């Protein structure tokens, strides 16, 4: 298959949320010796862009969104090792540490954002739910992340988002990281109040925000 045949199919596989097709097409591209960065940018990324548009138009709901993100992950799982093998460097937009703060076991929203960030080209380190605040910082330091994303679904646990920022300050690390907050009780106002770098109200908006912040660095 030529690029002009392959790329629309890749995009379609993402829009349809078809994991198998997305991965198989990635395999075709690898075997065909195509420029893999070009494959990502012109084959798969337009698919995710279309998914974002469909979401914003109210056409797509969470099941479609998450299926597309997973199709994207399946394709990248084929392409990433090959990129490394060919020493083409990372396609990654940046490294993110994400989790639901301690005392809070809700992880659906966080999982959505993690998947979408990954599909959006970020290297995502998902710490899960009920994560001790120190672990966010330790992990970010360990992997050299540029961003820490904190989810909280309870008004009783959202204060931990503020605490984490305080802990970064205490350790002299605040300038090193962009801190993003999300979850039902959070808001733009809350993010401003606690000195976070951003707030997103849903997973699609979170990817946009993360990309903007990564680009501004």
């Amino acid at each position: 298959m030529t690029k002009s045949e392959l790329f629309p199919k890749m995009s379609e596989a993402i829009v349809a949320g078809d994991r198998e097709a997305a991965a198989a097409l990635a395999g075709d591209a690898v075997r065909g010796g195509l420029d893999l960065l070009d494959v990502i940018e012109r084959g798969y990324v337009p698919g995710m862009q279309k998914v974002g548009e469909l979401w914003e138009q109210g056409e797509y709901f969470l099941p479609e969104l998450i299926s597309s993100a997973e199709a994207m992950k399946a394709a990248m799982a084929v392409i990433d090792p090959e990129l490394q093998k060919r020493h083409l460097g990372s396609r990654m937009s940046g490294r993110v540490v994400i989790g639901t703060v301690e005392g809070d076991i809700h992880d659906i929203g966080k999982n959505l954002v993690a998947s979408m960030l990954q599909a959006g080209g970020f290297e995502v380190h998902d710490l899960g739910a009920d994560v001790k605040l120190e672990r966010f910082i330790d992990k970010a330091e360990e992997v050299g992340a540029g961003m820490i994303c904190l989810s909280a679904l309870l008004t009783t646990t959202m204060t931990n988002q503020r605490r984490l920022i305080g802990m970064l300050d205490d350790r002299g690390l605040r300038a090193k990281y962009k801190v993003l907050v999300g979850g039902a009780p959070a808001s733009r106002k809350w993010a401003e109040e606690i000195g976070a770098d951003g707030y997103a109200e849903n997973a699609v908006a979170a990817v946009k925000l993360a990309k903007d912040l990564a680009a501004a660095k």
Partner: protein
Amino acid sequence: MIEAKRPKLELLSPAFIDKIVDEGFALLETHGIMVENAEALKLLGDAGARIDKSGPRAYPGRALVEACLATTPASIDLRDRTGARAYTVGGDEVHFDPGSAAVTMLDHATQAERRAATPDVVSFYRLVDTLDNFHFQSTGLIASDVPAAVTDAYRLYLGLILSEKPFVTGTFRVEGFAPMRDMLAAVRGGEDGLRRAPLAIFDACPSPPLKWSNLTAQSLIDAARAGLPSELIAMGMTGATSPATIAGTLVQIVAENLCGLVICQLARRGAPVIFGGSPSSFDMRKGTTPMGAIETMMIDAAYAQIAKSLKLPSHAYMALSDAKVNDPQAGFETALGAAIGALAGVNVISGPGMLDFESCQSLEKLVIDDGICAMVYRLLAGIAQRDEPIALGAFEGFKAGMSFLSHPHTRQWYRKEHLGAGLADRDPYDAWVAAGRTSIVDKAHGDVGRRLEKYAAPPLDAAVRKELDRIMAAYGRSAGVEALPLPKGF
């Protein structure tokens, strides 16, 4: 005289119920369920369930579950604090209680949510004590002015002092159970008395899909041993933490709750168990858990029907709303849920007063919802034959131009047959304008004030009070809390 027929809503055919229950059994047997509590796992293993310690997962077989079902009481008699009034939880009895464990309160003056503190919790219990259509209290508000480690027992402590109604409650941490049980036993003069006449129900939620956490499994064991009813709160979210179809979610609810029931029975045979839940039709746009969605209510009504087929008491989170203020959405979701739950014969309906996905309580909404529950109880009472003949007697001597207003038949029956308006507006338009176009929320606010003014604490034996104070203070100290923020004169 022909008696009233109890109006009833049934969403499932008997064959469909059997199929759902069969799949629930099969799910437990083949897929198993994660049990994170060592003691519960041991009880299950000792009773013959296959255990996979690496999960840790249990695979209770059908024979074990059926044996446990056979020892679970079909109904429970809760008694109020005085022990005089009994409430049967079973059959088609319906009891409303406020939605539980809200973290915020809707402030009437600002129409914004704010964290609740001790004075709010006190007002909440006092108000609920005056509202006759809520048979039970619930520990429905969490005080933010005490450390999180003691909030579970603290809310029960305040409630037991302020109200005689039975409680729907639960623990937030494993250590919370003992002081809560001790307080309840103090009211009854000992644990035997409490076992004979339970004063509270303990909620315990499995974590969907198919998991009993350490905290909740421990609560089941502790409550069973104390003779206190456990309310099993399955809470799958369709398409997110449970199958997207309503029937698929029902299968999961059956599996989760029956595993909880087995743990209770293995901890103590004959332990009272209520088949309940807080499932939701997951919102695929917002990622939220709407309690006011019609499908949520359909799931509730259907599992209540399944509970009845298993001869178990039932519970649901209904008669509540996802709205953020007392707007039309709050009214219609609450009323629809109250009516559907009651028609389905859900024994314990938790929800009134609640807004914003089970997170906010409103005093004004409690008063409005009490009126909704009054209407629902009237509906349940149905239509009975009052006279023989039904109406021919009333028409005797009736001439053109007469009305029934002064007829003895009217005086005899109208108060028994008709409820009256409550807070609902039934003014002619001009009168409504002249009276200041008052909304039901403003009327409710006025009513809240009058009720709180009128409230008188039900008498509590001084020795019992002293014991409650002692237990609470000791629990507080164990968590490093030296002084509780009790209001003056409390």
